[in-house]
């Protein structure tokens, strides 16, 4: 009968890489389960956790039952072999982690020769049933569950002992091919009972016990034929061992994950988990030296030697500290320590960066290290970054630890327009009304193009404005029916309002009685518009000139404030250009006429005409209608556009 195909243990002889059973979690396998439970039997499709075979254990010679026709007694009742799909042996969860480290299997010592026990010695008792008595071929069970009365059976048991013959109780034993498991009793034996005849591999292990001279955590095992009608006892030797593990951390206590650890002279190695640990499992008591290393960590390697006594767990402690390094950047051909935050940098500009190891002295980067991130890409000591995105950016290098630079990248430069702020006041003081321009106030920004070793000046804002002051002292606004109630008042009001904006003698009669704030404000508002249009005409060239100003970056390394101050200063600096901008605007404004007949007066006259019309309409409605002066002020002006002509080369 073939054995139950499920689970499918990997035959020891086919196992390409004897490997400890992976732990259920974590990247590193836990070679030896610490619980005294049943021996973990690899469950399919576990990635080949395979018991280490004892080799070359001499094959025992099964003692045939004699005579062949004698039925194989089953008393005192062999353990029935579970039939498929019977209860599965406890599977060992497979690990999703990285491949298990490969402690090099050390062949177990030949060990004691397994002793097949002849049936006549009582391993197989007399038949206790009539059916068995007549079988003749030793019908002791059928693990596949398809029992045929004529099939002779075999009995197998596993005994675990130490090299000096002491029974090992509590060892987890299993029959690999059958997926059977059990635990040895006080006599060191576990009896698996009747099984189908065949060749089997028995394995056994116990925490802190190891095969004599074996690799850590490897179970002892033995392969033997179990012919029909025989009772075969597997003999496994496990000696009290020592459990060794290693913890790797930095000086500050931070666990070091991913360090490669190995036992000198043994070839056993592994990789530490997130807690910095790796468990080699049970090994023979001895003094061991464990070394550990990791790229970009110092020392390379660290090591520690300890004695690992029997029946004890010994943890080795290794300290690995990451390289200390810094990031430099190239300024005008010279590598300098890069400040953080750095910038603002001009969008689209580039900079060269280099990761420099500061400790340990003389260390160099491993191949492919460090790796760059943030806006930087690639690996190796140096990288070049072009900053195409604005805002808060980073550049970092990582190997062992990370060094990061915070970098501010300016927004793309865009033309700015003048922000206007106009003031207006009115009071009863006597005229004249005035419109005065305010000084322009610029706010500056700067960005660095490190690869060109330049600071570039940028205009953030430009603010301008006017202050208009209207004084109504000495005149009053005509209000028909309120302060215009007689024909004489109406005539005087119209006469005053006509002469205020008319050329020649009409305007020369001194301050009149009648005027309006609205007309005056309109007149002054025209001046304001003149100033706005003139300034806006000259502004774009000014902005262009200002933003061509540069100073060397290395003179003001990462010092935007002083770079801006430098770019504002001097006869060719930004402040001088803003002053020149105001001067040219004012010089043109000064050329614009401000006399009777000029556009500001025409604009005011047009407003005055509405007041004249109001008085006339009121007078026309009187009985008899009032006789009022004819005429109106010229206007309004049709051309509200100014095209400055004074040449300007900021």
């Amino acid at each position, binding site marked *: 009968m073939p054995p139950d195909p499920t689970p499918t243990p990997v035959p020891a002889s086919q196992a390409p890489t004897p490997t400890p059973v992976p732990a259920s979690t974590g990247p590193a396998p836990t070679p030896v389960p610490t619980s005294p439970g049943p021996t973990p039997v690899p469950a399919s499709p576990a990635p080949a956790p395979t018991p280490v075979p004892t080799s070359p254990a001499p094959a025992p010679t099964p003692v045939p039952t004699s005579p062949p026709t004698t039925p194989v007694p089953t008393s005192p009742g062999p353990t029935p072999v579970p039939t498929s799909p019977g209860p599965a042996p406890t599977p060992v969860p497979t690990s999703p982690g990285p491949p298990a480290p490969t402690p090099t299997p050390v062949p177990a010592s030949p060990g004691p020769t397994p002793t097949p026990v002849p049936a006549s010695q009582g391993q197989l008792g007399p038949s206790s049933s009539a059916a068995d008595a007549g079988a003749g071929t030793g019908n002791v069970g059928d693990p596949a569950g398809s029992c045929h009365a004529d099939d002779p059976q075999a009995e197998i048991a596993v005994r675990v002992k130490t090299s000096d013959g002491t029974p090992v109780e509590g060892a987890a034993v299993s029959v690999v091919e059958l997926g059977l498991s059990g635990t040895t009793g006080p006599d060191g034996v576990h009896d698996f009972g009747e099984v189908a005849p065949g060749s089997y591999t028995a394995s056994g292990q116990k925490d802190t016990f190891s095969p004599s001279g074996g690799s850590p955590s490897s179970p002892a095992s033995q392969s033997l034929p179990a012919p029909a009608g025989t009772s075969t006892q597997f003999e496994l030797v496990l000696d009290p061992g020592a459990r060794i593990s290693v913890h790797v951390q930095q000086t500050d206590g931070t666990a070091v994950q991913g360090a490669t650890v190995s036992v000198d002279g043994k070839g056993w190695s592994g990789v530490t988990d997130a807690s910095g640990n790796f468990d080699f499992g049970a090994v023979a008591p001895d003094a061991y030296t464990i070394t550990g290393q990791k790229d970009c960590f110092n020392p390379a390697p660290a090591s520690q030697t300890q004695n690992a006594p029997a029946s004890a767990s010994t943890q080795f402690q290794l300290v690995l500290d990451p390289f200390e390094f810094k990031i430099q950047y190239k300024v005008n051909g010279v590598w300098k320590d890069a400040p953080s935050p750095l910038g603002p940098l001009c969008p689209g500009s580039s900079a060269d960066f280099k990761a420099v190891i500061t400790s340990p002295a003389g260390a160099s980067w491993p191949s492919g290290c460090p790796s760059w991130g943030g806006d930087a890409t690639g690996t190796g000591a140096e990288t070049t970054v072009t900053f195409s995105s604005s805002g808060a950016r980073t550049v970092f290098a990582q190997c062992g630890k990370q060094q990061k630079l915070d970098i501010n990248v300016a927004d793309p430069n865009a033309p700015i327009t003048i922000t206007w702020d106009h003031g207006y006041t009115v009071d009863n003081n006597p*005229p*004249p*009304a*005035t*419109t*005065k*321009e*305010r*000084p322009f*106030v610029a706010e500056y920004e700067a960005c660095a193009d490190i690869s060109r070793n330049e600071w570039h000046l940028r205009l953030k804002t430009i603010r301008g404005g006017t202050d208009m002051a209207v004084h109504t002292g000495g005149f009053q606004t005509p209000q028909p029916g309120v302060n215009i109630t007689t024909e004489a008042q109406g005539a005087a009001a119209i006469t005053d309002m006509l002469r205020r904006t008319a050329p020649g003698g009409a*305007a*020369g*009669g*001194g*301050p009149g009685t009648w005027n309006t704030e609205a007309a*005056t404000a309109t*007149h*002054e508002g025209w*001046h304001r518009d003149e100033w706005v249009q003139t300034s806006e005409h000259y502004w774009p060239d000014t902005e262009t000139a200002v933003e061509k100003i540069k100073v060397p970056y290395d003179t003001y390394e990462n010092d935007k404030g002083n770079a801006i101050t430098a770019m*504002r*200063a*001097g*006869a*060719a*600096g930004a*402040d*001088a250009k*803003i*002053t020149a901008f105001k001067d040219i605007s*004012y*010089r043109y*404004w*000064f*050329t614009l*006429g*401000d*006399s009777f007949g000029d556009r*500001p007066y025409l604009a005011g006259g047009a407003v005055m005409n509405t007041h004249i019309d109001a008085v006339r309409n009121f007078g026309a409605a009187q009985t008899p209608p009032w006789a009022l002066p004819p005429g109106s002020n010229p206007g309004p002006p049709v051309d509200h556009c100014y095209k400055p002509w004074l040449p300007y080369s900021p």
Partner: protein
Amino acid sequence: MIPLILTIVLSKSAVATPRRLLVDLEFKNTSKSSIHLLKYFKDETNLSIWFQLHMTLLDGTPVPGIRGGGKIGLQEPLEYVMVPPGKTFSLQIDFAKFVTDLQPGTYEMSITYRNQYGNDCFKGELTSNTVVVQVLPNPD
């Protein structure tokens, strides 16, 4: 040919400070005819319409925030001062009022006079000589 020359001299009556920057101005008629100047020099609130102050540090950096320039709706009849040929007209102006937050230091200073108003008077602009002024801190 401009028939007027504008010359400025720092007033010797007081040291220059951010709060007081007295300058003596002199218009000299270099023509053979009398010249009229608008006579609106006592209205301190509007002096910046006629006079523009230029101040720079010795490296050419201008002093920011200097007020000056503007338009004014003068009421007729206008007032004038007459400057005979070869004669001068002088006045003193405190230009500290033209500057916001003037800092102590050494400056180059000049004045531009501008006028576009009036009849039969000087219209145009005149720029003075440049003088060096050391502005001392305000006295406590």
